[in-house]
């Protein structure tokens, strides 16, 4: 909104006061375009230099003005390079405007307003509409990946719609490390409702000083999202859409039936057990479970129509979009559909008052499957199930026997019976059968919007009031059919149905008062404001059993015939109230300072520590504005920035400062079951705000007339008073409270370089960014100085946090090769000369007595890897030649480890990757893969560095080729532009990781980079078009 205001108002004034008659005048006209595709620019200011005479371009990019033949035209347009063109008597001047090579002239959204990037004191990164549009992303977070240094985005898995992990400047908390998302001024809980196609810009506030204006919830960084607004002029209608097909990138190499039987026999033999397979028999089946599981050409599509326009008083931008994506595992069972509608408008009622709205509705239907789990994961089962089991059992002799004849075995739509393994049990089942029985669906209807009014009684003094709501209804469906997957995974008694509906409602009322003025070279802006937010939640759910149905996708409670109806309903609420102020001051664009103070009160804390105060201060010095700065063509811009600030984090559950009484602790006596109650956890009335302190030093520079821009930042971010429910000894007898338990430090460097240039018909740009972050726990307040982390399969903990180590590092035994012979076993001694691993035999793993206490036991577990990358980087290049455009986007990480836990080594009969073919089978055969045995007395499969692999990767995220039809062709059909493109995502990934996908997001703060058979990301080929009228 602000943008329009500042761009257009001067233009009107110029038109109004234009003096038309100045001696000899001619009429000059022309068209202003940009790019090799000659895109017409609307609203460009064309003025006669040194006068107030001017005009702006219309929707066809055309302008007309009167001037003297000796005048010079001054052409300016936000985000583009300004030009001065002598008229020299011409009457037709067509102008090609180039986009600003450096972003320094841009306006940056800073929270409660915007600021010229040149005078910004903090570290703010902007992702443009164009970047967002180039990759087909379902969720907004994905558009940030690799675009800006210091913002690490990791996809949770390849499942459509899953929330990616976003970490700004490292993991600053052991709690919820998700940044705060603010859409058009309204903080929102999740942004899956938002159609990326509606976004105009994303600004990421990385340093504490920038984020401090959102003090209470800013500790993880703030992502400000501005949705599209309308532009004055003729209405434009844009259709954009694409259709894509997705396929699995690669299969993990698993043993085939022959190799599998040999290995199993060897495992039994090594354990002294009888061999399970007679190798003289020819195996009936040789199933490749991954081939069976991956959907071929899973579709993905998006269609969006945007209408925008406006007149002098009102502007609007509305859109409608329909998005659909099926997963490469499960297809329909792993699907995300979204319909969105948006209506943004802005009305200038009088010179003093304007109001407007940003309203969005979305409807989401989501079906999901477990995407990274050891137990009952479809992909995990595909990687562990034996190849001897058929996908479908067709042998009538087998079908006439138990379990096929006696159990509710699972069938596909055409009645074929899924095969059941005779060998692997537990949680490993036929993955297709597992998908077949899943019938859960989530539907969400969400309305997010705000209305605002701005009143400017005197120039520069603005009172703004904005009321926003985020209302979501979530409906969860679940149907549990009868099924028998194997002897351990079954439901053979009663079908059941559950439905749950939840209502989330947040309102926010925000009032700000600001005054900005320029007095000579002094420019200042003062802002004060208040925000009140209330969150309310209520849910209602029901459950019943025995559902006679032929259509498992349409099951309702009323169909159920059992008498055991159950209903649940709960509610929660919370509130936040904040007062804040900010002063921005700059002198001649040369020196600028920003100071912010915010006080937040949160209902999440008890009366002891309810309020938190969050100050910040930043300063910038644009050296190149100094008179002493040498005028040079090489370096034309140089700026230093420094900032300091404190942000808060309150992302814990409600009411953690009191203990709630749980009344589900009943017991049965003679008269029936009696109600029992006890506290849910030990209370801690003293919990207080988690605080994140950050120092940022940055430098921005521009070279070669803005062709090359560079910026670098160094930061130290220390979070103290981490809010965490740390595990406490079980003898306490109840769960511990959330407490302020520790500190974590993130230090890092961010670098960005962009080069852009153009020649005739040819325009190109290259950008590279990289960020280094070092994360370390500096304090933990429990006895152990440790916070235990994630578990894997049945092995228990595999990650933990500990003072002096990175958050959630991998923790296990260190190994030192394989015992090659008896001699090596007996020479693996402690300092007293005792054999360290007396139970080991040749072929077993040699473990290291890390603490040197003479025995190898649980105390020897140590650091074996770090899931968080040292470096994250992005590279993009674009090239436009005549009507063709081409772009490449590469993203990657360096220095992160992955825990390869996709194989259930604790279970017998599970299939193995072909890596096992290189196992130890005799002296000198392997020093990395132990012998294969079913009775593993040496516990070779314990959590050790043998599971750790390098997860560094470089991924060709997107490559795109586009063509725009000639304007002449378009004008015949009444359109203004029509572009076609073809693009590919995830075409190539370079990594040493041997699993299906090295990109594994966080399932929790302590659960990062553990591959339990992660749903891999698809390779997508897309065809798309954008048509504007």
């Amino acid at each position, binding site marked *: 909104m602000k943008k329009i205001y500042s761009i257009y108002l001067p233009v009107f004034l110029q038109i109004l006061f234009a003096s038309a008659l100045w001696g000899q005048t001619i009429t000059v006209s022309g068209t202003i375009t940009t790019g090799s595709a000659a895109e017409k620019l609307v609203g460009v200011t064309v003025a006669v230099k040194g006068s107030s005479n001017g005009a702006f371009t219309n929707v066809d990019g055309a302008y007309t003005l009167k001037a003297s033949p000796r005048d010079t035209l001054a052409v300016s347009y936000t985000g583009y390079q300004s030009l001065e063109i002598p008229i020299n008597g011409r009457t037709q001047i067509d102008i090609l405007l180039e986009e600003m090579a450096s972003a320094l002239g841009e306006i940056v959204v800073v929270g409660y307003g915007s600021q010229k990037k040149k005078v910004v004191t903090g570290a703010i990164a902007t992702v443009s509409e164009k970047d967002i549009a180039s990759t087909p992303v379902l969720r907004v977070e994905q558009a940030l990946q690799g675009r800006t240094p210091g913002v690490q985005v990791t996809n949770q898995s390849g499942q459509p719609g899953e929330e990616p992990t976003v970490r700004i400047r490292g993991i600053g908390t052991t709690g919820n490390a998700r940044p705060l998302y603010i859409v058009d001024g309204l903080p929102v809980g999740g942004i899956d409702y938002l159609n990326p196609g509606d976004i105009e810009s994303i600004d990421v506030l990385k340093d504490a000083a920038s984020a401090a204006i959102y003090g209470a919830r800013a500790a993880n960084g703030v992502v400000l999202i501005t949705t599209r607004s309308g532009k004055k002029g003729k209405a434009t209608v844009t259709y954009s859409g694409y259709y894509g097909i997705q396929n699995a990138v690669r299969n993990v190499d698993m043993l085939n039936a022959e190799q599998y039987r040999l290995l199993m026999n060897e495992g039994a033999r090594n354990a002294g057990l009888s061999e399970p397979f007679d190798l003289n028999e020819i195996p009936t089946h040789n199933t490749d479970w991954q081939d069976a599981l991956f959907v071929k050409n899973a579709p993905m599509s998006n269609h969006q129509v945007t209408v925008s326009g406006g007149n002098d008083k009102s502007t609007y931008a509305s859109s409608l979009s329909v998005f659909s994506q099926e997963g490469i595992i499960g297809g329909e069972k792993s699907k995300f559909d979204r319909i969105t509608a948006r209506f943004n408008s802005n009305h200038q009622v009088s010179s003093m008052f304007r109001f407007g709205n940003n309203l969005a509705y979305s409807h989401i239907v989501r079906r999901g499957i477990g995407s990274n789990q050891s137990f009952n994961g479809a992909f995990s089962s595909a990687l562990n199930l034996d190849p001897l089991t058929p996908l479908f059992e067709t042998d009538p002799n087998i079908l006439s026997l138990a379990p096929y004849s006696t159990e509710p075995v699972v069938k596909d739509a055409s009645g074929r019976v899924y095969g059941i393994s005779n060998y692997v049990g537990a949680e490993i089942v036929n993955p297709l059968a597992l998908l077949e029985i899943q019938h859960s669906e989530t539907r969400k209807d969400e309305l997010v919007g705000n209305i605002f009014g701005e009143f400017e009684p005197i120039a520069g003094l603005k009172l703004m009031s904005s009321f926003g709501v985020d209302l979501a209804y979530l409906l969860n469906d679940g149907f549990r059919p009868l099924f028998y997957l194997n002897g351990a995974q079954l439901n053979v008694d009663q079908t059941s149905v559950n439905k749950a509906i939840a209502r989330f409602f947040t309102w926010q009322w925000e009032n700000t008062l600001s005054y900005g003025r320029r007095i000579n070279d002094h420019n200042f802006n003062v802002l004060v404001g*208040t925000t009140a937010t209330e969150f309310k939640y209520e849910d209602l759910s029901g459950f019943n059993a025995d559902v006679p149905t032929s259509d498992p996708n349409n099951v309702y409670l009323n169909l159920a015939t*059992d008498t055991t109806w*159950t209903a649940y309903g709960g509610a929660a609420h919370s509130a936040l109230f904040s007062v804040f102020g900010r002063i921005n001051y700059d002198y001649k664009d040369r020196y600028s300072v920003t100071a912010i103070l915010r006080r937040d009160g949160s209902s999440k804390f008890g009366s002891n520590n309810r309020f938190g105060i969050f100050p910040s201060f930043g300063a910038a010095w644009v050296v190149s504005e100094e008179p002493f700065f040498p005028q040079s063509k090489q370096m034309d811009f140089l700026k230093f920035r420094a900032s300091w600030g404190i942000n808060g984090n309150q992302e814990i559950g409600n009411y953690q400062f009191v203990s709630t009484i*749980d009344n589900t602790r009943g017991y049965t006596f003679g008269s029936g079951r009696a109600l*029992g109650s006890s506290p849910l956890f030990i209370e801690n009335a003293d919990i207080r705000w988690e605080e994140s302190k950050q120092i940022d030093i940055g430098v921005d520079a521009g070279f070669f007339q803005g062709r090359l821009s560079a910026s670098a930042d160094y930061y130290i971010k220390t979070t103290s008073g981490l809010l965490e429910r740390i595990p406490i000894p079980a003898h306490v007898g109840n769960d511990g409270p959330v407490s302020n338990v520790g500190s974590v430090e993130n230090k890092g460097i961010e670098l960005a370089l962009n080069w852009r240039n153009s020649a005739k018909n040819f325009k190109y740009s290259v950008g590279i960014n990289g960020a280094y972050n070092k994360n370390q726990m500096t304090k933990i307040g429990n006895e*152990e100085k440790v916070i235990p982390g994630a578990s894997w399969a049945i092995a228990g903990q595999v990650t933990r946090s500990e003072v002096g180590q990175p958050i959630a590092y991998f923790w296990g035994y260190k190994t030192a090769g394989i015992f090659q012979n008896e001699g090596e076993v007996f020479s693996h001694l402690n300092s007293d000369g005792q054999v360290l691993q007396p139970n080991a035999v040749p072929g077993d793993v040699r473990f290291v007595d890390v603490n040197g206490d003479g025995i190898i036991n649980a105390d020897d577990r140590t650091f074996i890897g770090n899931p968080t990358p040292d470096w994250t980087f992005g590279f993009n290049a674009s090239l436009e030649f005549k009507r063709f455009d081409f772009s490449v986007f590469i993203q990657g990480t360096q220095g992160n480890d992955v825990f390869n836990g996709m194989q259930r080594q604790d*279970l017998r009969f599970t299939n193995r990757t072909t890596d096992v073919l290189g196992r130890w089978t005799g002296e000198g055969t392997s020093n990395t893969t132990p012998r294969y045995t079913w009775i593993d007395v040496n516990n070779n499969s314990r959590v050790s560095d043998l599971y750790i692999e390098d997860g560094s990767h470089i991924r060709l995220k997107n490559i795109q080729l586009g063509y725009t039809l000639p304007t002449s062709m378009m004008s015949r059909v009444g359109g203004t532009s029509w572009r076609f493109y073809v693009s590919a995502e995830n075409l190539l990934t370079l990594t040493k990781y041997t699993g299906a996908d090295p990109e594994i997001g966080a399932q929790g703060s302590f659960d990062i980079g553990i591959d339990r058979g992660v749903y891999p990301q698809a390779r997508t080929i897309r065809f798309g078009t954008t048509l504007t009228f």
Partner: protein
Amino acid sequence: MKAHKRTLQFLVPMLLLVGCSKDFLDRKPLDQEVSTNFYQTEDDAIQALVAVYDVLGYQDSPGVSWAPALTVSDMLSDDTYAGGGDANDGLDENELNTFNIPATNQLVHSMWIYNYIGIYRANLLLEKIDGIEAGDAFKTRVKAECKFLRGYFYFQLVRSFENIPLLTQTIKGPSEYAQPQSSPQAVYNQIALDLLEAVQDLPQVIPSSESGRISKWAAEALLGRVFLFYNGVYNADLQAGSVRVDRAKALELLEDVIGNSGHDLLPNYADIFRLASEFSVESVFEITHGDSPIWWDWGYVRGGEGNLSAQMQGPRVTGSTNWNRGWSFAPVSQKLVDALAGDPRQDATILRQEELDGTLAKGFQHTGYFSQKYSSDAEHWGSGGQFELNRTCNNRVIRFSDVLLMAAELGSPNAQTYLDRVRARVGLSSVPASLDNILRERRLELSLEGIRYFDVLRRGMAFATQELNVSGVRGPNYVGDQLLFDVAFKPATRGFLPIPQREIDLSAGLFQQNAGY
């Protein structure tokens, strides 16, 4: 001026919000009570007491594993194996069965956790009870019940883990989390004190509407069991405050139960574990399990009341009208079958695969025998819900025949009569009341009731090694390599379980692992 007026119109509500922010920010849970307004009325106290009883029924722990104490101790004994659907199904169980128990074993951890939950809830109510508005008689009984239950939970812990922290108050905050392990003696003495104090104040008669609540007789009988184990393992007497609990004192308590409680043997041994015999005259201490409320939630199993032992130990059979879909854990050993050969109690103790109709899936360590006492039999099926979670059989923790045999073992003048009563009930003739005969009778009378393993341990490591080592014994229906059925006891552990690794890690270096691990 006009502008000023409008400015005020904006500012006033802003200022008002600042003013009322205190109330605006004061939020309490909407759908639950909070600790600050609980523990006030008699009704609150009853709910708090029920929450302590609730833990009696716990057989699993939050996020850890199913570990019914009864099944676990029988798997440790020579009466049953680990079993389960296949070798993968019962990994932790098999670790127990073979005495290759890592400190990370989940069943071990599970038992540790749930017993301490009970201790916490008992301690909490003992701290709160005096501040509650209620009559003295009410408070006295509640305190006595809390003490009994605390004693029971401690006994479960100390006889399994030996070296455990002793807490008689709740932990108030992080500075108290780290606690040292107490000497076993201190723990046993506290148990004895709790039980003796409970004996003073517990009622003698429990009306049928209250059945499940603890009687004086239960406390006396439990103290007898505690004494026998402690005395057997440590060869010492208990000190309950100023009262010495020696052989004579323990016997006196048991004689009181035998003489004055009105408890007696049921006429028919086979009836003991029938549904109709719940809280029968024979039952001195019984833990309830049931199907109310009908339970569905696999994620919060202990919220329901079903007997998990029955589910775990039932045969893995489908299409049967008499047994349904157990998990075939703890299959009974040929050794126990041999011991019961010719004994009239054999059929009521052991379920043979030949008795099963329907289709039997033979699980890991299949022996062809299952428990008849706690099983997935039709009589104990729940009336709905997830059938695995709604098995209704109550756990008979202390039976009157156990009391008789304990008194006989402690040298009662009526030892012969007591032993004869137990034998005569099943039609066996009298044998001399020698210690060997009494102990042999215990094994046969009480097998598959979670008693055997501790009875073996308290007779010393030589005996335990002799009894618990199994090699080469094989029944006609065994399936699988003999290696899977051979067990070697580790006397270095003295039969105790390892302190869970997780607890050692969290103990600030205060916990020592038990010997032999």
